C-alpha cells in the first residue's frame, strides 16, 4: 500500500485520541455503548441464522484484523496470512485429537508455536518489500497448503473433524448451542480487538506506523526496523491463528482449504472494504463481505461474477474503504 493512499496526514497521526471531533467525546462514547449493547443483545431479537452470520462476521473480522495489523498499520501487504488461519485450526485439531491435550492447553501451545513459526518466516519475508513480499508470503502459504494436502497424519485433503468447543459445563452451559457460542465468539473477538487497540496505540504501534509512512526515517532514528517488522508479522500471525481456532470450533473441522490463497485474498479484501488502518475497519469489511456474499448467493448462482465486479469497484473507487470514504465525506461536510 502506498503511503499516500493510506495516510490522511491531517488527522490520523494522533494516537490515543478517542474522537476526531473533540467536542462530542461524550456523544461518541454513548454511541459506542449503544452499539455494544445492540451487539450483546442480538440473540434476543435475531433469528438463529442471523446469529450464525454474526458469528461468521466476527471470526472473519478477527482474521481481517490480524491482516490489518500488517497491511494497514505496518504497510506490508501479505497474501499469505491464511496459512496462520489454517495453522491455528490444525494446531488445536492435532493437539486435541492426535495428542490428547485439553482444549485450553492445545490453544495456548498452538499460539506459541504459531508465533515462533511466524517469527522465522517473518525474518525471511521481511527482507523483501512490496511485490516481492507479496509473492514470498504467497509462496509460503502455498507451501503449507501443499504440505497439508499431502500429510497423511492430518488426513491430507480431507482434514480433521471433531474439533471441540470450550467445555462450559461448570457454568451449566453448552457451547454447542448457538446463543452460548455467539457470546463465546463475541468475547474472544472483543478481546482480540482490545489487544489490537492496545498494540496500535502503544509506542510499538507508533513505530509500525512510522515504518509504513517512511521506513528510512525510522531507521535513521535508530530503530531496528527489521525487528519491528518481524514483531508485527508474528503478532499478526497470532491474531490470525486465533481466528483459525474459532473457525475450527465453529465448523467442527479443519482442512487445507482454509490455507488457500483465495482465503488470504478475501481477508485482504475485507480490510480494504472496511478501511485499512482503522481499528474497526476489518470488522465492518467482514460484515459487508459476509452479508453481500450471502445476499448475492440468494439472488443469483453466478456470485463469482458479481463478486469480482464488486471487488474491482471497491478497489478502484472506494479509496480508504467504507470507513475511510465516510470519514472523507463527513469531513467535507463540516
Amino acid at each position, binding site marked *: 500500500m502506498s503511503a499516500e493512499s493510506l495516510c490522511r496526514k491531517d488527522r*490520523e*497521526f*494522533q*494516537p490515543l*485520541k*478517542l*474522537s*476526531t*471531533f473533540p467536542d*462530542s467525546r461524550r*456523544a*461518541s462514547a454513548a*454511541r*459506542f455503548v*449503544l*452499539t455494544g449493547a*445492540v*451487539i450483546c443483545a*442480538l440473540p434476543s*431479537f*435475531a*433469528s438463529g*441464522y*442471523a446469529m*450464525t*452470520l454474526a458469528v461468521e462476521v466476527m471470526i472473519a473480522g478477527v482474521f481481517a484484523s490480524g491482516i490489518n495489523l500488517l497491511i494497514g*498499520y505496518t504497510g506490508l501487504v501479505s497474501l499469505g496470512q491464511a496459512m496462520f488461519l489454517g495453522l491455528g485450526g490444525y494446531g488445536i485439531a492435532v493437539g486435541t485429537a492426535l495428542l490428547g491435550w485439553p482444549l485450553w492447553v492445545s490453544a495456548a501451545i498452538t499460539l506459541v508455536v504459531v508465533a515462533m513459526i511466524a517469527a522465522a518466516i517473518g525474518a525471511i519475508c521481511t527482507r523483501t518489500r512490496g511485490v516481492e513480499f507479496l509473492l514470498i508470503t504467497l509462496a509460503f502459504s502455498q507451501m503449507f497448503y501443499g504440505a497439508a*494436502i*499431502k500429510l497423511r497424519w492430518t*488426513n*491430507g*485433503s*480431507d*482434514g480433521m*473433524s*471433531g474439533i471441540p468447543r470450550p467445555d462450559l459445563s461448570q457454568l451449566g452451559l453448552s457451547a*454447542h448451542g448457538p446463543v452460548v457460542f455467539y457470546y463465546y465468539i463475541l468475547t474472544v473477538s472483543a478481546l482480540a480487538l482490545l489487544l489490537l*487497540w492496545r498494540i496500535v*496505540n502503544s509506542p510499538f*504501534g507508533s513505530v509500525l506506523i512510522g515504518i509504513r509512512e517512511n521506513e528510512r526515517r525510522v531507521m535513521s532514528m535508530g530503530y531496528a526496523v527489521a525487528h519491528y517488522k518481524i514483531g508485527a508479522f508474528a503478532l499478526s500471525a497470532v491474531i490470525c491463528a486465533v481466528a483459525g481456532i474459532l473457525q475450527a470450533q465453529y*465448523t*467442527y*473441522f479443519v*482442512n487445507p*482449504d*482454509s490455507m488457500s490463497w483465495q482465503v488470504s485474498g478475501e481477508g485482504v479484501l475485507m480490510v480494504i472494504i472496511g478501511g485499512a*488502518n*482503522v*481499528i*474497526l*475497519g476489518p*470488522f*465492518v469489511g467482514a460484515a459487508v463481505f459476509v*452479508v453481500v456474499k*450471502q445476499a448475492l448467493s440468494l439472488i443469483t*448462482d453466478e456470485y463469482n461474477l458479481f463478486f469480482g465486479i464488486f471487488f474491482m469497484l471497491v478497489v478502484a473507487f472506494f479509496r480508504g474503504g*467504507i*470507513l475511510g470514504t*465516510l470519514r472523507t465525506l*463527513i469531513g467535507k461536510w463540516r
Partner: protein
Amino acid sequence: MAFSFEKSTRTILGAAAVLAATVGIPSYAQDKGPIKIGLILTYKGVYAPVSEGFDRGLQIAIAEYEGKIAGRAIEIIRADDELTPSVGVQKFNKLVQLDKVDFVTGIVGSNVAIALSELADRGKVPVIFGFAFADEITGKFCSPYIARSSFSANGFQYNSGKYWASKGIKTAVIMGPDYSAGHSFLGAFKRGFEEGGGKVVQEIWTPFQKTKDWGAALTQAGNSGAQIIYAFYAGSEAVQVVKQHADFGLKDKLPLIGDQWVYDEALWPALGDLVIGAKHITVHFPDLENEASKKFVKAFREKFKEDPDVNAALGYDNGKAIMLTLEKLGGEIPEDRAKIISTMRDLTFDAPRGKIRFNAQNSALLEKVYLVEIVKDADGKPRRKFVDEFAGAGDLSGCAKSF
C-alpha cells in the same frame, strides 16, 4: 491513530439493525405446510454433470407420488456446495436455519460429507447422503442422524477386486484422486484383489481437483509392468485421464478399467470413440432387466428425452427411499428427527439397481454389481452391454456408537 467511534459506530449499528430486522422476523409455525427438503449438490465444477443426473433422478422419484405425501407438498430447496467443505457447511447452516428445512439430502463429495456429518450430529438434523461413498462416513463418523442411500466404497469395490483377480489379472496399478473417496474405493479394490491372489504393483495418487496434466502419472503407470490400470475418477478429471491415457498409446497396452464414473455418459461427447470397448463396473445401466429399472427408465425417457445415467439412478433411489420413509411417517415430521433416519433404515424395497436395504449404521447395501462393456449399437452410438455380475459386499466396521 484516532479511534473514530462515530462512523464505525453508525455503520455497525446500521448493519446490525438491518441484519436483525431482515432476518429476525419470526415465522409463524404452520401446521400442514410443505415438507421442506434441502438438496445440496455440486452444481458447478468437477462433479457438475453428476449432480445434474442425480437431481433429475430425484425428480422422477418424487413425481411418482405426484409431489405430495399425505396431502403435503414436497418442496426442494437447492444449494451448491462447490465441492468445498466450508461452503457445504455454510449452505447447510443456511438451509437449516434460514430455510428451515426438515432434513437435508444429496451431497456428492465425501469431503463435504465428512464435514457435515459432525454438524448434523451436533445440530440433530438428519442428512441422507446420496453419494458420498467413503467408508468412514457410516463408519468412524456414524450417527443416528446420518444415512446413506447409495452404497459404501467397500460394498462396491471389494468384490470387484476379487472378480478381476479371478479373471486372470495378476498385476494391477491403481490410480486415483488423493482424498477420502479415492482411498476408500481403491483401497477396497486392493483388498479384494490381493485376497483374490492378485498384486497391486503400484499406487498413484493425484491431488484432488488440482491435477491438470496426467502425463507424469500415466507414464509411471505405463512403466509399472502391470496388466491393467484400475482407476477411480469422475467429472472433468475422468475426461482428461481417459483422453491422455489414449494419447500415450496405453489403450491397448494397459487397459483403463474403472467404475461408471470414469466412463460416464456426460463424458461421451468429449471422448468420442475412445469409450468403445471400455469395460467398467456399475450399479445400473439403462438396459438392465428388472421391473423397477424398466419403470424408471421409461419415466426418465419420457421426461428428459434421453437415457438415465447411473447418477440419475442413484438420485431415484435416494428419492424413493425418502418418499417411502415419509409415507411410513404419514407425512408427519417427528419431534426427534432421528426417527426419520431410523424409519428409513427399516425399509426394504425394489430399486432400479436391485433390492435396497440398510445396515445397522444406516448405510444402504448393494445387492449386485454389474460388469458392462461399451459397444457401438446399430445407430453407431455407444451403448452399455451386460457382460457379468457379482454380489455387492458388506460395509467395513468402524462405527463406535450404537443407535
